[in-house]
């Protein structure tokens, strides 16, 4: 590493990088295509984005078997990367389908929207594949910057602007923490590479080192911010509520999963499992996150806000799995993230089709009586709520079982008990939605449904997966277990 080779001679395995390349090319292509005039209602941009995501998924699928390390160990293509890349491509594709009609309706239909969506997805993929803290940071910033803009994309709406500004300011702050953490870790171990950090730590047990501890905790703060863990969650409800609903759907699952991916790789790869003195921190934050998220969600009347708090609570459940640690905890976290992505995308997806034109009908009262007036929409929303509540026979239940089983195996009984009691609390507000859907009559003008084929496909697909994984989760569970093997 003493001499930098000329760039064109870099021995890069381009195939293993296919997913990243496809997304980058897609984003650039979208911007270039804007020079060619298109019809006003054209779906060209959405199609290009969808193709880019599909190619990306295909590329990573084709390169799934070989474990490859690129760019001097900064980027690694292993089972973990493959799992998350596929997940992010799926999340991106869901988001494109949900946006398809929504952005036209709300008059934010620009190619930049999809280009930013691809950039954010690219950032997520990089975070999952990063084997170096610098690459993690690159991915994090790529994702975050794209999301800041997307949140504020309805720029003529005050809420959207407010949301973007809040998200940006607090996010920038968190990035600062994150970078500071990296710097201290570099100071403690002399490297930013996760593999070399692991070698260094196993050679010289530095556990009580203050530099390492503080650096690690600062890094955790950065991650906690991105996953919206308490007490770093303040931005979440405002950002989720103000952002265009399709963007909320995307970021509520994508950003969270990406941050958890990087956190897990850091914890398992660099530290060789979270040290025992970190477990109380993780458990404590998990308990707080679940409890604050669920209790605050009880009081919300705006569904977007309610789901924002619910997504905080779900970050808490994933943190339970992270605190459990080891291959069981990690695979439970992966499984839960996949399940959560599908059901949460579905729930927000239903919200994207409520209301005509630019109107936003996302209050609890707006869905009153919808269950019988629009049976499929009602059924979908009800199933997503039931699944988010962790009630069988839905995917959310199996997700909770795996998470709590992992924690129980790690001996975190109090955490598990707090977790299950929290899921009882959460059921109350998820039930409120079903109460509105099936047990109340609409007050005033009933909510219209803007039924569009792409969004319908996405919602039906999410519904099918939520139910399917509720009864047949074996395949996904094994996939998650296999994916974390490379980390240890």
């Amino acid at each position, binding site marked *: 590493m003493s001499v930098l080779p000329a760039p064109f001679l870099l021995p890069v395995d381009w195939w293993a990088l296919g997913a990243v390349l496809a997304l980058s090319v897609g984003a650039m292509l979208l911007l270039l295509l804007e020079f060619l005039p298109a019809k006003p209602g054209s779906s060209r941009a959405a199609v290009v984005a969808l193709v880019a995501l599909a190619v990306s998924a295909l590329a990573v699928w084709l390169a799934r078997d070989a474990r490859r390390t690129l760019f001097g160990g900064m980027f690694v293509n292993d089972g973990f990367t493959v799992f998350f890349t596929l997940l992010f491509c799926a999340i991106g594709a869901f988001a494109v389908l949900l946006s398809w009609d929504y952005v036209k309706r709300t008059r934010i239909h620009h190619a930049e929207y999809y280009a930013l969506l691809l950039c954010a997805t690219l950032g997520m993929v990089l975070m999952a594949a990063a084997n170096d803290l610098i690459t993690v940071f690159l991915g994090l910033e790529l994702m975050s910057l794209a999301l800041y803009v997307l949140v504020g994309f309805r720029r003529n709406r005050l809420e959207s602007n407010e949301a973007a500004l809040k998200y940006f300011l607090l996010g920038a702050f968190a990035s600062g923490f994150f970078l500071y953490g990296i710097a201290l870790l570099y100071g403690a171990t002399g490297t930013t590479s996760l593999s070399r950090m692991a070698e260094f730590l196993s050679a010289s047990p530095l556990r009580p080192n203050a530099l390492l501890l503080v650096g690690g905790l600062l890094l955790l703060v950065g991650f906690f911010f991105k996953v919206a863990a308490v007490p770093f969650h303040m931005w979440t409800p405002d950002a989720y509520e103000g952002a265009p609903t399709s963007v909320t759907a995307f970021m509520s699952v994508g950003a969270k999963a990406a941050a958890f991916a990087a956190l897990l790789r850091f914890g398992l790869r660099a530290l060789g499992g979270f040290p025992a003195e970190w477990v109380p921190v993780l458990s404590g934050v998990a308990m707080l996150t679940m409890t604050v998220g669920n209790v605050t969600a009880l009081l919300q009347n705006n569904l977007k806000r309610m789901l924002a708090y619910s997504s905080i609570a779900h970050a808490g459940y994933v943190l339970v799995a992270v605190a459990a640690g080891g291959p069981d905890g990690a695979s439970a976290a992966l499984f839960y993230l996949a399940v959560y992505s599908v059901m949460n995308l579905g729930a927000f997806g239903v919200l994207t089709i409520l209301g005509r034109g630019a109107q936003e009908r996302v209050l609890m009262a707006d869905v009153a009586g919808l269950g*019988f007036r629009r*049976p499929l929409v009602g059924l979908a929303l009800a199933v997503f709520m039931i699944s988010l509540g962790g009630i*069988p026979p839905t995917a959310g239940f199996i997700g909770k079982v795996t998470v709590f089983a992992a924690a129980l195996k790690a001996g975190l009984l109090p955490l598990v008990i707090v977790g299950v009691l929290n899921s009882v609390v959460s059921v109350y507000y998820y039930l409120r939605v079903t109460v509105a859907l099936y047990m109340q009559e609409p007050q005033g003008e009933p909510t219209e449904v803007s039924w569009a084929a792409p969004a319908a496909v996405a919602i039906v697909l999410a519904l099918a997966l939520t139910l399917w994984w509720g009864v047949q989760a*074996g395949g996904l569970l094994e996939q998650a277990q296999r994916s974390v093997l490379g980390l240890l």
Partner: protein
Amino acid sequence: MNFPWLSWLVFLPLAGAVLLLATPAAADRWHRRWATLVALAEFALSLPLWWRVIPWQPGWQLVEKRAWLPALGAQYYLGVDGISMLLVLLTTLMTVVAILGAFGAVRERTREFYALLLALEAGMIGTFLALDLLLFYVFWEGMLIPMYLLIGAWGGQRRVYAAVKFFLYTMAGSVLMLVAILSLYFMQKGLTGVPTFELDAFYAMPLAPASQVWLFLAFALAFAIKVPMFPFHTWLPDAHVEAPTAGSVILAAVLLKMGTYGFLRFAIPLFPTASAQFTPWIVALALIGIVYGALVSMVQPDLKKLVAYSSVSHLGFCMLGLYAMNPQGLAGSMMQMLSHGVSTGALFLLVGVVYERRHTRLIADFGGLWKPLPVYSAIFLVVMLSSVGLPGTNGFVGEFLVLLGTFRANWWWAAIAATGVILSACYMLWMFQRVIFGPVTHEENRNLKDLSLRERLVFAPLLILIFWMGVMPQPFLDRMQPALNRTLELSKQRAEAAAVMHTLPGALFRLPTGGER
């Protein structure tokens, strides 16, 4: 026998429900017919179990076992024995009765209503047949959703409150059971190295008395809420009163039995030492439930509420019989479960009949119904007497056996419980007198129409069962007794094993007898 009988039983109503949802919303006559057809087919499918299940053959019968979640070791594992067979038959019969009984009561959104009833049936049958604890939990909790929607969407004035309360109460109880199930799973895995949720494996695993306590409490809480036992019963009157008639019938006839079934199948045999340790508490709560339920019934102005509180009292007998821990007590408890299902189901239907005609359930709004409604009143008389436990009806057999078993266990318990029998006669007869006898006090009641042919047909099988179980209970007892004795035997064995473990702290060893593997 390769025909997957039990899977058919679980999935036939579910398939019926899904197909029903695919029909146009307006065709409500067809929805009724289709639901009736599916329920009847299901009943016909379950009926052969009466002969097919061989009572004295140990172990599970008609077993189906398939990998379900291999990563966790959970299996799709169904099986039946004398206990669950009778409860499954009760479920399929009462579903037919509930569907036929609801013909007139539900006039809007019939498609969703019947689909949910059928889905509920699938969930209940699955709960009784599942022998894998995770699968059991899936059915146990999944079944809440249709019941919740039935109460909430088709119920009375305070339906939303009642539905949410029902759901949260039951769920709050059962999540700790989930933790207990997972703990058991890890203990078992640590002991044998084989990850599994099979009930047999847990039956074969000795448990130290200290760990039994917490696990038992977690299981018992879930089941006690469902039964419901005395301090946890407050969801029941609300749910019963607000639910539509069909919902009340199913709730009383089958759902409550899941709690007692849970004690019988899981809580007692898995944790016999802790169970014995808590016997005084549970018996005390059961006795309080018997007397309190009866006393509260007495002062209810609302017919449905009266029947609801009488359920608290009757289910107290079931729990008392279980905790007598002798063959008579167990058999009595089981008989009481069945006869309570039939009688109370019938009582709710009877209340539904007058409610449909008068849109009130207040006792004060009736009086002298014998004159306009002679057939109705005669049926009411029989059902009421069976609920009181008149000899010759089904209620007598159960209560008598429970008292017999309890007397053997503890003289005092039986004495207190017997007052419940007297009290039940008081509130039932007094209610009957005010509703049926005397002069017609309200003009509106003078021209009420008596039971239609459909309604008579609904009551016919229930009346037959009331007399059959009352006069000749032996076929029922023959079918349940061997399985009950095995449960008792298993509990004793496990208690002894736990006692040995107690003297050898830290020793890990396996019972020589037990599971199939």
